[in-house]
């Protein structure tokens, strides 16, 4: 990428980018705070993370216009680590996540995304929406009707205000109104307030983030503690970032280098870990808001991070007064917006295996609270469904010649371990024949099971005294040449392309 196009990615759309960055920052504040609470850390960790990641990605990311910050998907994976080992181990895990992502980017492992089918992606997104929604429910514990009322009012403002005017961000208005109300009526004051506020959940940032090396022993034991968290974090981070990058590619009708994005995410996470922030990745919802608000370039991501930090540091005291009800309302909006409602509407239209994969992904994720596990289950299941469908592509028919003593069997389709089982059933071994011809020139043999299935049929016919001739075995076993390379014929590989 040339210097001129890099410059254009920064300054090609300045005014709109700055405005969009401001809108995104205002939407990011409640999210960064809420995701920190989900992970069980101080709100300032999420805010420092969002600032670091957004600013670094603005420089090194490969997808201008995409917003990366602290996310729910990552936060959900950190809960046990924080609970058992504390913040320092989380920061170390963040740095390790960054390193793993950089390595994955260098080795172009992002290309494995192609194994993640659309149903799995939809399942991932739906599961994320459900988990974000569920993470808000504990906030209602021990809070009376007031909480429900405020949340309902908040949602009313968020969804109602855009109908009146679209030039002010409605989540911001919601937060301001509810905070003002809570402060005015004194609902958030005191030790046992009527309405819990952000301040009671932890500290907010009062300074710029400072460089610190996580205070942990640098030994094998530490690595074994953080690695089981860093790996899923890295995988989920890459998955969500590449998915979001594809979505932003579609919006802007431009393409981006996915491996460079992996490296960019890795660098951002590493920096975030060293500045007291948790791991994050690209955010679908915020990127959609960014594009919707007119943001297209790196300046929008940069401004989002900068405005976020400035607002939080400058407005720290007031931010501590924000009632949790306001955050919950905003999180409900994010959850509803993230959920792919059309996938449920269309569940009857799509074929059953896609829907099953999607539902299995959602259920696995919701029950394990681990998005990587859900994606893994979905990928395996979709692969198995595909294999099963291909195994159905096998047709065998036959003709008997005039003398009634010779039969020709024609095999067409894909023969491999799944379909080999039923291969033998297609032949009639009770028939008395002098000669059997098996024509496999339109069949594809994919593995040794297929060859052995054919061998067993041949042996059975020979046992019954019939003479067996196999036609076209060279063509059929070309697909085997890829693996076994024992029947290497010159030119065999060129003809493989034709399959």
């Amino acid at each position, binding site marked *: 990428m040339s210097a*001129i196009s890099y410059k254009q990615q920064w300054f090609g759309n300045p005014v709109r980018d700055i405005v969009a960055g401001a809108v995104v920052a205002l939407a990011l504040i409640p999210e960064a705070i809420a995701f920190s609470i989900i992970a069980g850390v101080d709100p300032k960790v999420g805010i420092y993370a969002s600032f670091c990641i957004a600013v670094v990605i603005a420089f090194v990311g490969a997808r201008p216009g995409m917003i990366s910050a602290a996310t729910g998907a990552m936060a959900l994976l950190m809960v046990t680590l924080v609970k058992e080992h504390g913040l320092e181990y989380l920061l170390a895990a963040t740095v390790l996540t960054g390193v793993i992502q950089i390595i994955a980017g260098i080795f172009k492992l992002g290309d494995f995304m192609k194994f993640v089918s659309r149903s799995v992606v939809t399942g991932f997104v739906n599961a994320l929406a459900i988990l974000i929604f569920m993470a808000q429910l504990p906030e209602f514990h021990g809070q009376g009707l007031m909480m429900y009322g405020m949340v309902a009012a908040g949602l009313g403002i968020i969804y109602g205000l855009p109908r009146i005017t679209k030039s002010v961000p409605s989540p911001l208005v919601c937060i301001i109104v509810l905070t003002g109300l809570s402060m005015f009526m004194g609902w958030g004051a005191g030790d046992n307030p009527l309405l819990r506020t952000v301040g009671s959940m932890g500290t907010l940032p009062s300074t710029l983030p400072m460089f610190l090396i996580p205070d942990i022993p640098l030994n094998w034991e530490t690595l074994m503690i953080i690695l089981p968290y860093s790996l899923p974090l890295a995988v989920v981070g890459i998955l969500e970032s590449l998915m979001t990058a594809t979505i932003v590619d579609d*919006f802007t009708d431009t393409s981006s280098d996915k491996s460079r994005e992996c490296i960019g995410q890795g660098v951002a996470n590493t920096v975030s870990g060293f500045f007291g922030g948790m791991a994050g990745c690209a955010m679908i919802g915020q990127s959609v808001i960014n594009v919707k608000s007119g943001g297209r*370039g790196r300046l929008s991501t940069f401004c989002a991070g900068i405005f976020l930090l400035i607002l939080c540091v400058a407005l720290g005291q007031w931010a501590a007064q924000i009632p949790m009800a306001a955050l919950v309302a905003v999180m409900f909006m994010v959850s509803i917006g993230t959920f792919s409602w059309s996938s449920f509407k269309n569940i009857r239209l799509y074929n059953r295996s896609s829907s099953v994969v999607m539902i299995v992904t959602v259920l696995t994720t919701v029950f394990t609270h681990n998005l990587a596990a859900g994606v893994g289950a979905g990928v395996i299941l979709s692969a198995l469904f595909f294999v099963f469908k291909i195994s159905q592509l096998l047709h065998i028919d036959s003709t008997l010649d005039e003398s009634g003593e010779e039969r020709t069997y024609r095999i067409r389709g894909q023969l491999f371990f799944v379909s080999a089982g039923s291969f033998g059933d297609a032949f009639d071994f009770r028939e008395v024949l002098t000669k059997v011809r098996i024509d496999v020139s339109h069949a594809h043999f994919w593995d040794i099971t297929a060859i052995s299935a054919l061998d067993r049929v041949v042996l059975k016919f020979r046992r019954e005294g019939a003479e067996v001739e196999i036609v076209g075995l060279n063509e059929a076993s070309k697909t085997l040449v890829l693996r076994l390379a024992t029947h290497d014929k010159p030119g065999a590989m060129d003809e493989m392309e034709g399959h």
Partner: protein
Amino acid sequence: MPNILVCTDGSAYAPSIYDHAAWAAQRLDASIHVLHLVDPHHETASGADLSGALGIESQSALMEELVQLEATKAKLAHTKGRAILQVARDTLAQAGIAKVVADQKHGSLSDSLETYEPEADLVVIGKRGENTSLDFKHLGSNLERVVRTCHHPVLVASRIFKPVRRVLLAYDAGPSANRAVDYVASQPLLTGASIHLLSAGSESTRLTEGTAAAKQKLVDAGFEVKSELRPGHPIDVIGETVKKDGIDLLVMGAYGHMHIRHLLIGSTTATLLRTCAIPALLFR
């Protein structure tokens, strides 16, 4: 048969661009490829909804909206492009150019040049384009990128076409200046014009030898050459000469100085293009 690539956007400079292209085509006996680019400008946004809220199915709704918006803009741009190309074809046909191919493509000029420039022997572009402001303080936004990426000579057309009788060749003994000399000597583009070989700055053996060799090459090719070395800054020296001697065409190597110098001080090439209201033939 040599081919000339003409980049047009139908702006105020377009008639002059076609005149310059016709002049070059007649001299070089070349065919012309007129290229108009419909640039969707993906780096900018056309609308903005600042509500910052995500409704239900906001992603597909936003996608629909963007596709609709861009489809409407694209269709308008196509119609405008077709009109531009028709004007180009008519102008060039009137000038008597036989082989003219005119088409429009999607993309930005700087990105598309890699595809079209190799097939061309000369590229013609206007000094400014669509975003011209009437006080002519700035050069066209595509100009620098085009000149930097082209491997072939670039003819930058001025506002009005005048027959070329006096040519100023700015010579600094650098590789692009030598390329310019070779081109002028070997191609029939400038036959019949008188050439003023001008160097600015302090004397040096390299410069003296280079100038002598260049003058010899041009004289051998049949040109009437006057060579001169004047002390002073290239921008001032060349600017003065252009005005004083009524030069019709400026030939020089472009963007030769280091990038840092360009960022801090400003490019000599760009300043000269801005201040001298004559066409320029640039070499890399």
